[in-house]
């Protein structure tokens, strides 16, 4: 075994990275549900989860335990094999797609092996990501079919037709970015966005290059929201007509798995939007002496958040909250202290800006859900085929024309 390990160091290094990433991902999935419920609640002037833990912070945990201990009902006449396969497929594909995402520029060492801040850095990372996404449609279609019930079948059909339609616009909207970067490697795409207009405006793909990809980004994000079956494109889950769509007949943790898959795809798509259009881990501030203070933004942000938590927490309603919130604040403060240490400051720059942008996109996701009404199915399909698809082709043509014209 030792010989094997020394021959294939990449696997030895990858294993702890994968375990850590999966744990972090699952935790963030759980707290993304909390985040969504809180934000939507505040949009609608409600409080959202409040009872389980201070500000409902333990709600995801309670939900998980509850899902696990619920009765697992299998509908009569369901195709058992396919019925069990569908949630399995959905979740495993959704949490695999994050493996190609690079979170920062720095290489770090695990067991003496330098390794990038990603599970793996593939030459065709973007294509692999799309390949994994394209398989996601089966989870939905098979779940709908195997339940042997009318609502799931209709919901599954609708969702899968919607997913393949918007997958087209999604794959074509990023061609503009590939044209500008000339690579499928996600790290290289980020590196191609370095530099600043007039010394302060970052040359991210959104506003930089021969042809700003503003149109490309709007197409990408719209298609991505539809691809992940989120509001306002969540036709499959239109409660008023289809009960819950493809997962109507699912109970217990299998039901939760579809949600985990959905939230996981949300995170992956937000990461992808950040990488392709918003400069990935690049800081929005130039790396010049005048902007040296920008290096301390992560530490300052954590310190402020920590202080706020401590001062708010000690006056919280419940005893439990008066303990937990300040402790969380102290942890954040300690992290802030860690971040101003010389080596660490440089290291956290990339991941900090990356995660900040990702959280912003996740917020937009929830914001859109809290704001926009649901579309009708014919409008939805018409929107995808008659507007997004031609626009993304137009984007390809314009971008390539701009590149040819500016090329010497």
């Amino acid at each position, binding site marked *: 075994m030792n010989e094997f390990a020394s021959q294939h160091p*990449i*696997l030895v290094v*990858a294993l702890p990275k994968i375990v850590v990433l*999966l744990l972090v991902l699952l935790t963030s999935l759980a707290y993304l549900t909390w985040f969504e419920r809180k934000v939507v609640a505040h949009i609608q002037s409600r409080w959202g989860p409040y009872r389980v833990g201070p500000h409902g912070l333990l709600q995801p945990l309670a939900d998980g335990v509850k*899902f*696990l*201990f619920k*009765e*697992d*009902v*299998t509908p009569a*006449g369901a195709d058992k094999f396919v019925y*069990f396969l569908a*949630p*399995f497929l959905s*979740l*495993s594909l959704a*949490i*695999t797609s994050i*493996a190609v995402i690079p979170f920062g520029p720095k290489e770090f060492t695990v067991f003496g092996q*330098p390794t990038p801040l990603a*599970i*793996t*850095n*593939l*030459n065709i990372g973007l294509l692999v990501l799309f390949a994994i996404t394209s398989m996601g449609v089966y989870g939905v279609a098979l779940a709908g*079919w195997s*339940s*042997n*019930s*009318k609502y799931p*079948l209709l919901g599954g*059909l609708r969702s899968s*037709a919607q997913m*393949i*339609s918007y*997958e*087209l616009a999604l*794959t*074509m909207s990023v*061609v503009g970015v590939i044209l500008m970067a*000339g*690579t*499928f*490697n996600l790290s290289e795409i980020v590196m191609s966005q370095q530099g600043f207009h007039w010394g302060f405006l970052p040359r991210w793909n959104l506003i930089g290059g021969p042809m700003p990809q503003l149109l490309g980004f709007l197409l990408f994000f719209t298609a991505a929201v539809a691809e992940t079956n989120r509001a306002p494109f969540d036709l499959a889950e239109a409660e008023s007509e289809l*009960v819950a769509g493809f997962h109507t*007949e699912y109970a*217990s*943790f*299998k039901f939760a*798995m579809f949600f985990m898959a959905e939230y996981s795809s949300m995170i992956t798509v937000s990461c992808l939007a950040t990488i392709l259009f918003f400069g990935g881990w690049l800081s929005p501030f130039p790396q010049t002496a005048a902007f040296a203070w920008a290096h301390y933004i992560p530490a300052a942000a954590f310190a402020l958040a920590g202080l706020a938590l401590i001062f708010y927490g000690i006056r919280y309603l419940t005893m439990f909250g008066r303990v937990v919130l300040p402790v969380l604040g102290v942890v954040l403060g300690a992290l802030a202290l860690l971040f101003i240490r010389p080596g660490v400051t440089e290291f956290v720059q990339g991941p900090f800006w990356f995660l900040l942008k990702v959280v912003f996109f996740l917020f937009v996701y929830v914001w859109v859900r809290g704001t926009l009404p649901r579309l009708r199915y*014919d409008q939805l399909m018409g929107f995808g085929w*008659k507007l997004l698809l031609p626009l993304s*082709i137009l984007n*390809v*043509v314009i971008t*390539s024309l701009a*590149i*040819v014209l500016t*090329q010497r």
Partner: protein
Amino acid sequence: MTGNDLQSYAPLLLHLTLAMALSGVLVLLSSLVGWRRPSTTKSQPYECGITPTGDAREPFSVKFYLVAMVFILFDVEAIFLYPWAYIFRELRWFGFVEMILYIGILLVGYFYLWKKGALDWNRPAVRRDRAS
């Protein structure tokens, strides 16, 4: 670690394996941990409380097939766009003209679909000719 190495796919495979193991464990747990008291009524397909009638798998609109077919065709186009975009800076005007021709021919088909109403969902898939 340039990504030029076939070995860089190994972590991806490992990740996939772990993800599958995790999902498998979750599926198993959900059927092992929760209690079970099955009854005929409980395992009926949900139809808003009414006794289910008929077969769940009924024929549905031909639109769905049409969408899947057109999807494959445009997917082929998108796949061709990728290597083209990848080496576009080498191809320059030649590549541009090439792709304009390619996209142009496909757009003819696209407008044919549009005219025939294949992209409309609130009407029959294909309008019958007015004469007939």
